[in-house]
């Protein structure tokens, strides 16, 4: 059975995946970039289901430099930059996984604008998105990317 790495800051995605995707995938959970990178080494995974927003994560666990982002994007507002890192953390974790050589298909449950999804594909290769929790749509998206 293929393994699905579920990356999120809570347990909603994992619960959903175990209930509705268990016939297709063995679910491997990860709660941060560090855990995701470790899980991709052992036990490894064939695909990824990624939460975009990590609002419950500690700032120390986040990828990205809040100070740099504050200066470059948020008129020096560090708190806003830190919030943005949480809101977009899933894409940054995907970037770290790609940098580490893990090119497996990745799907977000988020209604990205088409242009943004195209940008993500240009940056990170095999990336898909489904607008809501829908097991069949997730499976179809992963199959298309396989």
């Amino acid at each position, binding site marked *: 059975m293929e393994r699905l790495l579920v990356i999120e800051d809570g347990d909603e995605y994992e619960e959903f995946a175990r209930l*509705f995707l268990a016939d297709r995938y063995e679910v491997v959970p990860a709660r941060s970039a560090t855990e995701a990178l470790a899980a991709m080494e052992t036990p490894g995974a064939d695909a990824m289901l990624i939460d975009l*927003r990590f609002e419950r994560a500690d700032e120390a666990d986040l990828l990205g430099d809040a100070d740099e982002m504050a*200066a470059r994007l*948020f008129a020096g507002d560090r708190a806003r930059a830190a919030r943005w890192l949480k809101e*977009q953390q899933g894409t940054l974790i995907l970037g770290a996984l790609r940098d580490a050589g893990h090119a497996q298909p990745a799907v977000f449950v988020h209604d990205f604008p088409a242009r943004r999804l195209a940008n993500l594909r240009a940056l990170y290769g095999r990336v898909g*998105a489904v607008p*809501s929790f*829908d097991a069949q749509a997730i499976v179809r*998206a992963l199959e298309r990317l396989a």
Partner: protein
Amino acid sequence: MLKGSQRSDMRHVGRLCALCVLLFAGCSEGSSEADAGPPVAERWARARALWHIRRDPGAWAAWHAIDPDTPEGREARALLEEAEPHYRRLAAQVADGDPRVRETFERAVRIAPMDPALYLPLARAYRTQARTHPENSVLVIRAVEYYRKFLALRPDHPEAPAARRELARLDPEASRLFFERPLEATEAVAPPAASASPPAPTWPFGVAFAALALAGAAVVLLVIRSRRRAESLGELASRRPELHPAIAYLVGSLRHELLKHRIGAVGDAVDALGRGAASEEQRAFLRGRLFGGEPLDRAWEGHLGAFERALGPELDLRRRDPAFRRADRAIRRIASLAPRVEAEERRAVARLARAHGELRALDRHLAKLVRRLVRTPVDGALLRAVVDEVRGEYAAGRVALDEVSIRAPEPAPRVEVFRVDLVLVLKNVVRNAILAVGQEAPPRRIGLDVSTEVELTGEETVRIRVRDTSTERFTTEDIYARRMDRGLGLVTAALGRYDGAIAVEPGDDGWEKAVVVRFFRAFDDDDEAREA
């Protein structure tokens, strides 16, 4: 006491009345400005004001009269040429019923006035549409308006006689104002009394007549609008752009907390239950999300209450907004079905599936609505308007610039910033650049350009760069630390409201430095197709 909507209507009426006054004023002024003898720079400034401030349809002649052998004349001709394709496209879009007409018109208007000769194809396009859609009286009004403008400004055009006849068929009474001699029976569908009408007045009275019609329409609009009471969320968003940030936040919360994690997440469980194939774990999952924790109807009420508190009494989601009304019924149905769904009664499960579908529809509706909120295109016209406004100021207007270059991509990227605030930010940066180069010897140059960058998150940022040839040195930190007293405190405050930033960068290609303002890009509706 006037309600907010009435105050807004009064402002609209005020604007229309001001337009009427300008039109009346135009009757006596004619085009003498272009014939006067002030220096070309002053004539050009007046010509720009005639259009950008007064929106005088006669501005085209004033622009065209600027000597094309001068820098001002070349700039005028270049802008007229840039605007013309947009104006030409208008007639085709009207003829096709293309909804982008307004966008095209606004874009063209921001660049330069319209060649009066183009009023005729526009009038004819509206006339054709009016025939196709006789129920829409606005189309006839528009057609008449453009025929009048054409005949007022180009009475000797070869097509003018045909235009008079066409106008006469649409509006015999008004058309008499544009005939140089009494109508003949074969020329127009006019009542017999027409031939006994007084001598035809000259065109300014026609404009005055149009102004009166506009004022009348404004009063009718006020009466109709003042009778309207509560509104749907979409109506409120259309009318009150200043509420867009609040609407986006409230909709985002509702969608994420309730529609995604409680409703969207149980879609597969509802399906499985309907097929009689739900596992015990899936049933528990459904029960937990729909019937566990805070009761669904109470959570829903909480969100609706937040909308109403934040957006005011003009909003009535339950009665005026069909999508919310249906969702409201669906929420109550789901809440009432709890014991029967848990008992897995077949009809109750079917009703649950239908209610779930209504809520998913609301989610899609809200996603679409949010994508339509405040978006300002960062195009050449906007940058040009900023430069023009700054150059119209006393101090900046005294700086003789040797070059103003403006470059913006097509199609223009959009940002989620109110236009008025974006203009405020850019005017400050441009003003500082002009005043700084004014301290230096010629050549004095400024340049504005727009580009986009892709972030690691897949988002894009729009970079608006203002370059100049001043050797004055300052840094990004100087701006944020407010060590510069040039209105940049206002700029950083505005940037903070819109997730924007500002930075000083080295110049290149002969420029001394660049001040870069950056905002996140708002993706256009055209880009909003979703993954299947």
